[in-house]
């Protein structure tokens, strides 16, 4: 599973992209976040309670219940500020 981070999440986690293979029971965006928090201190900080984070699965916005599976591109980022 390809995981992407943008803006301050990228800075906090220390990379913009990683290829990870979460356990098979990680089947939703919410579960993936819970699992990522265990990966490193940077991940834990980035996904700490109260952080305003948006997720996208295969380049479409996705809620916490959205399914994720091997082969998906999952991105995490703060609320957008372009324009």
């Amino acid at each position: 599973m390809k995981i992407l981070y943008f803006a301050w999440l990228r800075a906090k986690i220390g990379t913009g992209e990683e290829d990870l293979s979460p356990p098979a029971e990680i089947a939703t965006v919410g579960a993936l976040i819970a699992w990522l928090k265990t990966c490193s201190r940077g991940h834990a900080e980035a996904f700490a309670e109260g952080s305003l984070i948006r997720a996208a699965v295969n380049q479409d916005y996705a809620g916490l219940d959205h399914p994720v599976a091997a082969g998906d591109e999952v991105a995490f980022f703060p609320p957008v500020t372009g324009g």
Partner: protein
Amino acid sequence: MIRVQSEDFDPGAEIARLSDGRTDIGAVTSFIGLVRGGDIRAMTLEHYPGMTERQLAAIEAEACQRWPLQAVTIIHRVGRLLPGERIVLVAIASPHRAAAFEACEFIIDRLKTDAPFWKLEERHDGAHWVEAKGNDDARAQRWRK
């Protein structure tokens, strides 16, 4: 027409392109967003390649569905920009002015809340990621019905 690019764009050429050689267009509207100075020394625009273009295409498609539009141009720059530099252009051609205005405002409002761009501002006390404005959400919300 959607473009995400680091180089500057020429608003006059882009606006002229919408109506050149056509006689069926009644109104062309445009919006240009620029980097405002003050405490901001520079701004770096980061984006999510691929998703950005997808989101902008979806916004453009929704605008074309809601209003009778004849041409749409969205150009957004990425990378480091200095005060006074252009960030974004939205330009619309339509037979009617009300549609041209509404679609232009709709696209920039939606772009601000949906398109995956992030601004890193360089201020006197360092670099800060810009926080999203509730105000932008409220403006984008106006279009949901």
